[in-house]
């Protein structure tokens, strides 16, 4: 019994070590916006193990569907949206429909 416990512990430790290695980074960049993407690139080039986190969809150059719209072309006229506020109380302060 004692042996079994010891064995399972060591297996647990092994898994822990592997996990730690795969989820440990030298740098974590949150958000791949105008400066985040650039920061991640520079960090990679300096040889750091870098993780870049982005919650939005992938945007390719030229894919800016709202860039040339006027305020009246948006359903909520670029005003704060209550559903957004409920879902993301903090982040919704800084974004709108555009």
């Amino acid at each position, binding site marked *: 019994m004692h042996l079994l416990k010891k064995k399972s512990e060591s297996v647990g430790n092994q898994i822990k070590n592997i996990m730690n290695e795969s989820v440990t980074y030298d740098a974590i960049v949150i958000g791949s916006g105008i400066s985040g993407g650039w920061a991640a690139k520079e960090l990679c080039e300096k040889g750091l193990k870098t993780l870049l986190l982005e919650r939005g969809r992938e945007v390719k150059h030229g894919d800016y569907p709202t860039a040339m719209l006027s*305020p009246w072309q948006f359903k909520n006229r670029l005003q704060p949206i209550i559903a957004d506020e409920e879902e993301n109380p903090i982040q919704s302060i800084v974004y709108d429909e555009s």
Partner: protein
Amino acid sequence: MKGVIATAALAVGAPSIYEWLRLSRKPDLQYLVSRKKLIGELAETIIPETDSPGAKSAGVEEYIIYCVSNNLPRKEVNCFIDGLHKVEHYCLKKYDTTYEKCSIANKNEVFSMLPNSRLYHNNNFLKKVDRKFRGRSFFTLFRELTIIGYCTSEPGATKGLAYDFVPGSYESCISLKKNQKAWATK
């Protein structure tokens, strides 16, 4: 003594429970949509047609109906609907006609009776508490929605205000000219 406290609690509690029930009921959005003309006329009273377009030609009523049904907390939606009822009743009772058919002087008078309909009119602290629990008043809601709807509409932004679709260069400081219109974009 206990009786006095209980009576006082009831006196304060009963109306607020009634108020809470009134503001958290399921909003009658069909009524809201059916009063499109009334909403348009109320908005036109705030921003009438002059040498620049008025609220009706800017389609403000469409925006108000959309915004009230999709983008307001329930208590404010109910407050808005109750406000419309109130205006309708007031006009029928006082002028024996609908708001749409009232004279301009009477229309303005209806508005002047609205903001006074709430208690604690001049106490800022009570006003804040009131807004926290009951939301904005009908008058405040209507005024805000009308102005946002107008200033972000195409006729309002391009003809009522100064709108520059592509501003181009960044100019940090431009002095206002005489009779200069406000800029439509923030």
